[in-house]
């Protein structure tokens, strides 16, 4: 088996073995308590909450 074919095979196996997540692969967040809590109340769904500051040592653009 050539090296390239081996790499393709490894990638294919990894793709099949990976846990199934939709294409986005990111959590979709509500950014305000007002909106998020009203959605939770109306939908009856539990809440995953993680607050975060959108700056690092006063420098924006990084959590």
């Amino acid at each position: 088996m050539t090296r390239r074919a081996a790499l393709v095979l490894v990638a294919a196996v990894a793709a099949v073995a990976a846990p199934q997540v939709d294409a986005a692969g990111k959590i979709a967040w509500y950014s305000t308590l007002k909106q998020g809590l009203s959605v939770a109340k109306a939908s009856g769904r539990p809440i995953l909450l993680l607050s975060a500051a959108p700056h690092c040592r006063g420098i924006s653009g990084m959590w």
Partner: protein
Amino acid sequence: MDRSFLSHAGVIAASRGFVCIRPLTYESAAEAPFLVNLFRGRSGGLENTVFALLGPDAKTRLCRTGRSPRFAFASPDSMAGAMKQILKKYPDTRPFDRPLPLLPNVRLGLNVSSCDSTPLAIVYSPDEATRTRLQQQLARLAWKPDHVGQVQYCVATKPEELKPLGGKTPRPGILVVQPGIYGDRGQLISAVDLGAQPDELANAIDFGLLASEFQAKSMRFHVSRGQQLGVNWKTAIPVTDPGGRRRGRRRPGN
């Protein structure tokens, strides 16, 4: 934020059954008491991050609250397993159209989209009824499996709010923007006007997703370069995290 937990495939898959809320710490005086009530650090004040799993009433605590998922779970796998168990107690039985998740304003929209390395879609119109209609159109798109979590959204009502985009003020409509590295400005990459049909709107968002480019950020380089450039993010309320304050005092001129 603890990306090892939040980027875990099992946690992301389970999150689809939760309402996920990421309040922006120190950006709302109204939200701070709720967060401090969930988790108070050793200093007694609000820390940079607060983590909780809660019931739909926002009062019932479903795990130990803390600064991050590590306070409650030994590993991302155990967090994903716990979330799946919780979902069994809250079956998804109520029909519900999820609204568009909105950031509070363009300034925070640009910053958060830069943090998340996603494009920002701005619903821009002075007319409330028009904004509501466009938000409903966008919401149908935003929760589709291939779009969920991929784009940030916010609203603008006045031309002044769009100054960070530079150049001529765009016409009202949906503006898809690539945020700058520091999230203090943005570049318009696609737009549709107020009368856009759903397929035109979808095309504009898809084009924004394809055309936007993001570089991996190194915290050390990002912060040191930002300090050289004079970037200085102003929070809405004082930072009370002891780590953040210590670091802030060391910074010259801060």
